[in-house]
């Protein structure tokens, strides 16, 4: 344990100054938090309006014969102001020597630039350095040289150049004539320019080119020389000095980062929205596999980065907001094979308002996330929320989106034969109920036929059952945000309201989020930041999922095709009993479900964050942060009186609260040594505590019918739900750079876990990464603007065991009238053999990559290759249930992911009023389960209703194999039939993985004058999906593939059990039985899950704004937005291959989820 000595010292230090109880900690947290809020509020009132100025801000700086560029960079670092200067110009000036002294920034710059032709100007947080007297154009020079002998007839073009991002004028921008680059000038201090245009261009349209360092060149087509031009410059989208947010919220220059990190800007998430913001990442980031679930509004999302890394554990990333983790555990898991009150209660990430997001950084690899230790083995999604900015007055932003949702897909059922079983129409009400879900009747002929309710109706196709049952969903989101700030304090306050009326009738979601961010600079060295967010989320009648019980979608899809779904309404009779429409009491009447079942959950959530930063020295600061993600959850689910499968009803009440508390202290030291080396060293400690405390009460059989109260149940069980875990950590990192050419970063973290045995409760996670800026080191062809190579190695871990898993314990049976005791079960009710030797698994990642820019930054490439191996994975080895237990957790699994990610960005067209940008991503991940427990070849992940198919992790194969039964064939490939003509069930085989290994996306954006248009197409392929919908549609005669044989019987030709030729004609009366039997040959219903979708379309218009009275409208954008508009390609019939409904590891199964929707509407963004 030599390597841990330094950490041991840390531990000692930390131990001496620690306090004890969570309560005191919470008190402190809240006191600290409110103090900061209070102080900042005071300051806010006092000083709003003024701004940070280079006239007042001071820096301490000196220089000894160093290049001007370097001095400017130092000033940039020290002052916090971003510098923009013409690199090619400043090289010519001599080196700078300057006495070390504290001066204002303005004074410092004056001194340095004293003997140059350069001037400077402050804009907001930028300092622009430009040439005082731009060189005269070649035309003008020529004029001087040759005197009056050659004279252009000149006309003058006037214009002004502004920064697009803050509307300030641009001084020192070069303006030249595209047709003759020799004709040029530069803008003055107010951004204005005058360009003399030679006569020969005056008569027709010509273009000018405006350029400024750090900004895209703008080409403007000039058609009228007399009209003053306004040119806006946009920052280079992936400028070389782009800054990205990395682990712990540390900002780094992109070129210094030795691993793949992808950033998504908040404004990409706010126009075409998703109720769950995680779903909006779909198709946006290479290597991130997002599955939005078919569970209705407010449901969960499943995000897996670079493949599944754990066989049985959590495979989703850690979500971190402003550097501190939040809790993303789904409230209750949705299972794939149960029904009743089986709903998706949503996850933690859905509580973040996209309007509050400044950016999302996706840390994909182990190195990127190594500083987060055990929790980051599946990657980290880092969310940085918006802050206020120094500005005059209070800025107001308003974003409003209204969308409508409709089912995106209507199944292509057969509409030739109607209800019935034997090729005939039903003749009695009893038969109409018995065959209520069978479409094996006679040909539809419009005659009058009795139905389930005794009423005779025309025997005609009902093609609109889906349209008629579901509502048009409506989602209305409104966010208003106020920002403001002074040089001391900035704030941003936002309030958001989301109102969603789901497509399933009576299902609504109402979500309100208020977020306040305050940051202040209290004096020169102290700065504080506090964020408080409060969510209230009410969800009514989330739809039941999985099996038919209480599932509104089941009957809607499976009702016989000649019965109008609306005739089932309202679903209950005069006595309140469910109206039966089919022979199984378990296939609940859809209207009974929506009208009588009740599901209600309320989430109250508080996310608090506070940080204090103090500069001990110019290059040494200390930062302390605390955060608390607190959730209070209340759920009531009611199976009503009169339900066919539970006539006396049932009630389930779950109340609990969770708290995820993190506190962290870091020290950061920055120094320069050996002339060209820079070092940034960080060390810190973190403590994480997670508690869950609550009660679950399940009652059944209401004594007084229809009175739905826990006080009214005949039987009830109350279970305490409690768990508490803690992880203490110390960590350190050191970043070195040499001449901004070579970067090296090493990190280490040691975690101590409360859930492990005390004698072996800690693990160390190291990482190292580096990058090399090839384009700075050697001279590359001019068409290569930038080239960076990077590489990294990390060893992280994850999946620390569940609490209380070390020793066998016993529990009293709750609610018993006599004392009864039993062996303690885990949260899922399973008996797990305790294992005191368990430790978190280890995940090793090697990653290499390259970033390049070509053709004047018009084409960009980012490539990553990685290989990640999880060893010692915690596998709940299935033990024989007759051992008294169901599983034993063992550190024995091994799983590997290797893959490639590609990001291409391009700008094929760039004209003055028109531009076209393309972003393309591609990713491929090869997953292999390499080892399970000794003698264990497969590990069960989940199963479908009736276990028609199951999903396994299998040794030697990609994770998530769907196992289904084949059709039995003899050696010659002939189908084997049973004596009664049924196809025989063959072997249980692997059909492939339910997780798509490959994904691709392409985004095209077009800008034309005030219009912008973009669309995103994405696709996944290489996976399989089992469709329960199709299996049941086959059983019930809705599939077109069940049509053969309906008129004259189905002739079969194959072999019997003894390989003897077998010919048989299934009589018409047995056709239903023949096709029903195919449920035993489930491979018929496992399809290729590939798809390509038109995921998103935005058509926007920047409305010209006028000031309305005293209100100054800065911008107004109106967009048409659409999500999931079209499925361009798919193989699976009748379903959307993305219709899974569980966020769990058993991916690749579909069955009667809430129909996936096409959503379209309008978005309005206004800035005041």
């Amino acid at each position, binding site marked *: 344990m030599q390597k841990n000595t330094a950490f041991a010292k840390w531990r000692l230090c930390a131990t001496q100054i620690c306090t004890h109880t969570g309560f005191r900690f919470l008190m402190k947290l809240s006191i600290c938090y409110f103090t900061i809020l209070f102080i900042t509020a005071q300051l806010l009132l006092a000083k709003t309006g003024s701004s940070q100025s280079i006239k007042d801000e001071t820096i301490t700086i000196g220089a000894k014969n160093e290049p001007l560029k370097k001095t400017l960079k130092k000033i940039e670092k020290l002052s916090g102001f971003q510098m923009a200067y013409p690199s090619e110009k400043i090289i010519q000036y001599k080196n700078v020597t300057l006495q070390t002294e504290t001066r204002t920034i303005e004074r410092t710059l004056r001194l340095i630039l004293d003997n140059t032709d350069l001037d400077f100007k402050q804009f907001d947080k930028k300092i622009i350095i430009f040439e005082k007297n731009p060189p005269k154009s070649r035309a003008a020079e020529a004029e001087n040289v040759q005197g009056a002998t050659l004279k252009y007839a000149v006309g003058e073009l006037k214009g002004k150049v502004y920064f697009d991002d803050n509307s300030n004028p641009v001084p020192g921008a070069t303006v030249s004539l595209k047709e003759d680059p020799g004709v040029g000038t530069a803008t003055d201090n107010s951004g204005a320019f005058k360009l003399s245009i030679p006569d020969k261009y005056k008569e027709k349209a010509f273009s000018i080119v405006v350029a400024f360092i750090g900004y895209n060149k703008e080409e403007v087509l000039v058609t009228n020389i007399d009209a003053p031009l306004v040119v806006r410059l946009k920052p280079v989208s992936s400028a070389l000095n782009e800054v990205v947010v990395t682990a712990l919220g540390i900002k780094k220059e992109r070129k210094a980062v030795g691993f793949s990190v992808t950033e998504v800007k908040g404004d990409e998430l706010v126009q075409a929205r998703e109720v769950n913001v995680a779903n909006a990442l779909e198709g946006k980031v290479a290597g991130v596999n997002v599955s939005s679930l078919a569970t209705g509004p407010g449901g969960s999302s499943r995000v897996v980065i670079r493949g599944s890394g754990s066989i049985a554990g959590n495979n989703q990333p850690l979500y971190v907001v402003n550097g501190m983790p939040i809790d993303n555990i789904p409230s209750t898991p949705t299972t794939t094979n149960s029904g009743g009150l089986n709903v998706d209660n949503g996850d933690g990430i859905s509580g973040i308002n996209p309007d509050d997001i400044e950016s999302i950084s996706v840390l994909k690899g182990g190195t990127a996330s190594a500083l987060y230790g055990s929790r980051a083995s599946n990657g980290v999604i880092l969310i940085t929320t918006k802050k206020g900015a120094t500005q005059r007055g209070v800025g107001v932003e308003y974003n409003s989106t209204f969308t409508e949702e409709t089912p995106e897909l209507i199944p292509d059922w057969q509409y030739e034969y109607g209800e019935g079983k034997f090729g005939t129409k039903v003749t009695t009400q009893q038969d109409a109920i018995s065959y209520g879900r069978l479409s094996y009747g006679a040909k539809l002929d419009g005659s009058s036929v009795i139905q389930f309710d005794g009423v005779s109706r025309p025997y005609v196709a009902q093609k609109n059952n889906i349209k008629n049952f579901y509502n048009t969903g409506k989602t209305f989101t409104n966010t208003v945000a106020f920002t403001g700030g002074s040089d001391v304090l900035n704030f941003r306050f936002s309030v958001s309201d989301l109102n969603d009326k789901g497509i399933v009738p009576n299902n609504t979601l109402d979500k309100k989020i208020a977020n306040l961010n305050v940051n202040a600079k209290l004096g020169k060295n102290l700065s504080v930041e506090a964020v408080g967010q409060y969510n209230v989320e009410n969800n009514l009648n989330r739809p039941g999922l999985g099996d038919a019980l209480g599932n509104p979608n089941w009957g809607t899809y499976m009702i016989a095709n000649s019965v109008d779904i609306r005739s089932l309404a309202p679903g209950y009779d005069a006595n309140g009993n469910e109206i039966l429409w089919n022979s199984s009491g378990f296939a609940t009447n859809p209207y009974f479900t929506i009208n009588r079942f009740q599901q209600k959950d309320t989430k109250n959530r508080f996310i608090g964050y506070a940080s204090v930063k103090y500069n001990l020295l110019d290059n040494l600061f200390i930062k302390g942060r605390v955060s608390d993600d607190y959730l209070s959850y209340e759920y009531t689910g009611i199976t009503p009186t009169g339900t066919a499968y539970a006539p006396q009803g049932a009630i389930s009440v779950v109340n609990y609260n969770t708290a995820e508390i993190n506190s962290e202290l870091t020290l950061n030291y920055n120094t320069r040594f050996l002339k060209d080396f820079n070092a940034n060293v960080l060390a810190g400690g973190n403590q994480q505590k997670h508690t869950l405390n609550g009660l679950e009460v399940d009652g059944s059989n209401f004594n007084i019918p229809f009175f739905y109260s826990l006080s009214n149940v005949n039987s009830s069980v109350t279970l305490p739900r409690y768990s508490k875990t803690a992880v203490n950590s110390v960590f350190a990192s050191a970043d070195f750079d040499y001449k901004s050419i070579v970067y090296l970063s090493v990190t280490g973290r040691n975690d101590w876990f409360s859930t492990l045995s005390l004698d072996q409760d800690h693990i160390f996670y190291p990482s190292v990464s580096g990058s090399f800026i090839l384009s700075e080191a050697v001279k590359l062809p001019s068409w290569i603007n930038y080239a960076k190579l990077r590489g990294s190695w990390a060893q992280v871990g994850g999946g620390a065991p569940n609490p209380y898993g070390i020793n066998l314990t*016993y529990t009293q049976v709750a609610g018993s*009238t006599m004392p009864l005791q039993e062996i303690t079960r885990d949260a899922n009710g399973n008996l797990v053999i305790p294992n005191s030797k368990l430790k978190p698994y280890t995940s090793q990642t090697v990653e290499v990559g390259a970033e390049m820019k070509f053709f004047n930054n018009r084409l960009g490439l980012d490539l990553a290759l990685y290989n990640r191996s999880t060893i010692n994975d915690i596998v709940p080895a299935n033990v024989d249930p*007759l051992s008294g237990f169901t599983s034993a957790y063992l550190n024995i699994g091994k799983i590997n992911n290797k893959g490639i990610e590609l990001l291409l960005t391009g700008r094929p067209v760039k004209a003055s009023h028109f531009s076209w940008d393309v972003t393309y991503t591609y990713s491929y991940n090869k997953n292999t389960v390499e080892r399970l427990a000794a003698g264990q070849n497969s590990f069960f992940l989940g199963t479908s209703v009736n276990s028609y198919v199951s999903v396994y992790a299998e040794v030697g194969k990609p994770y998530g194999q769907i196992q289904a039964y084949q059709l039995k064939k003899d050696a010659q490939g002939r189908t084997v039939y049973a004596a009664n003509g049924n196809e025989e069930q063959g072997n249980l085989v692997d059909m492939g993985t339910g997780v798509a290994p490959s994904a691709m996306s392409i985004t095209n954006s077009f800008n034309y004058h005030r219009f912008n248009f973009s669309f995103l197409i994405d696709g996944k392929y290489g996976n399989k999906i089992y469709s329960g919908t199709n299996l049941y549609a086959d059983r019930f005669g809705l599939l077109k593939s069940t049509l053969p044989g309906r008129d004259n019987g189905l002739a079969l030709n194959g072999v019997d059990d003894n390989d003897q030729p077998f010919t048989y004609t299934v009589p018409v009366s047995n056709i239903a039985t023949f096709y029903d039997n195919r449920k035993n040959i489930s491979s018929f219903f496992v399809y290729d899950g590939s798809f390509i979708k038109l995921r998103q379309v935005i058509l926007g218009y920047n409305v010209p704004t006028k000031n309305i009275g005293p209100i100054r409208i800065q911008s107004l954008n109106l967009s048409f937005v659409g999500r999931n508009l079209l499925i361009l390609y798919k193989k699976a019939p009748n379903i959307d291959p993305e219709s899974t409904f569980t966020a769990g590891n058993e991916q690749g199964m579909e069955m009667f989820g809430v129909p996936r929707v096409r959503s379209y509407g309008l978005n309005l963004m206004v800035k005041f």
Partner: protein
Amino acid sequence: MKKIYFGVCLMSFVAMMTPSCKKDFAAINTDPNAISSPTVPYLFSKAELDAFNANYYASQISNVAGFIQHFANYKLTSGFGDKYLTNNEAGTALDAYYQNTVSEISDVIRYSKAAPDVNKLSQARIWRVYVMHRMTDMFGDLPYSQAVQGYTSNTFFPVYDAQSAIYADMLKELDEAIQAFDASKATFGSADLLYGGNITSWKKFGYSLMLRLGMRLTKVDPATAQTWVQKAIAGGVIVNDTDIAVMKYQSGSINLNRNPIAVDLIGNDYSATAYGLNLIEGDKYSDTYVNYLKGNHDPRLSVIAVVWNYTDPSNPVPDTTAANQKGMANGLTSQPVNFQSYSEPNPATILQYTAPLMVLTNAETNFLLAEATLRGWNTGAGTVASYYNAGVTAAMHQWALFGPGGVISDAKIAAYLTAHPFTGGTNDQQMQQIHTQFWASLIYDEYESFSDWRRTGYPVLTPVNYQGNNSNGTIPRRMMYPLSEISTNTANYNAAVVRQGPDLLTTHVWWDK
């Protein structure tokens, strides 16, 4: 300097909020809702209840009761026992059985090894035999010597013991445990839900169980059977109504406190609003069973069965009139017309959460004593006929425990015995009469009824022949192992199959050869 000082202050402040003490880890990782060592009596109570609590409906009513035609079911999904279809329900019940009652009673034994606990140990050992014999009777070979040792010895994949070895050990266990009782030592007292810790009663229960197990061996090893039967009779079995083993239940608010038969039947079929028609799973009494009682004018019929009278359709009422009772045929595939007019359990007796559950009664011991006498193994005072009469009488008396609706007067019992006296005849005829009565009395202890039928062949049942059945149209002879055995304990499972025969419904267990 001031700066540094301020920094240190700040650092300590934040550090205070960052307690990285490890010392509270042990406390954090202690579940406040669990205890680290068991309270043995409470575990024993649970083990007693759990012997009857595991999937009663799916494993007995829906399965075995169809084999032996106590019940009939018209559906395919729940009528697998009725139609001899393969299913995993009995297997699921086996898993639940091992993970609850077997595991719990084994823990009780593990924690009762100290000398002062000898009576507790004996009670636990006898109960473990009771629990285990029911499972081996259903499946044959099973993990026994290595069962439920996943935690204690990390035996994740227990070997299967031959049923012959299991029986030998169970009989030895009974003998040893009974001998070990010591009246001067403590018992489980009121935590013993069966006998309140009464040692005398436990001895009688132990010997009665020995009688049952010994008699089970008559086909495979008559000599050993005789030895154990005689030992049991000599030791003293339950003969009086007051000594019978009955689990009593309370209404309570959780199902574990309630009669599991009532809980499962109400939950799966006979809810308060079903009125004989809206049954969830679709079970009715078999016409084989109803016809037997009805044909003999058996007074139990009105105690056990009702039909629903729909004279006033808005208020259907249960009707216990014997003449109106009607059983449903086994092997149906669709709901018969007038479904409500078929007999089902009487809500006034059977469908009560507080109803008793017959564990082992003097009806059984008397029938077995009758058989022992017939075989010449019983040197007691009675005759075959007297034990038969005592058995019938006990079987009718028992229903009084179900409340007023279950009381059958002595006069009625006497009249029944007069009308249906023990007729004697050949050994086979006597066996048929004894064991047909035994079958009639064992309604709801489907496991035992199935075992007795397999051993004796009585009553004579006519199998149904549903197209697509999995037993070649014969009444099954055992349950199939759980699917989880095939997937997790493959090698040991295969060894058992090689020894015992294919894992089919039709394979005979060792004592049923």
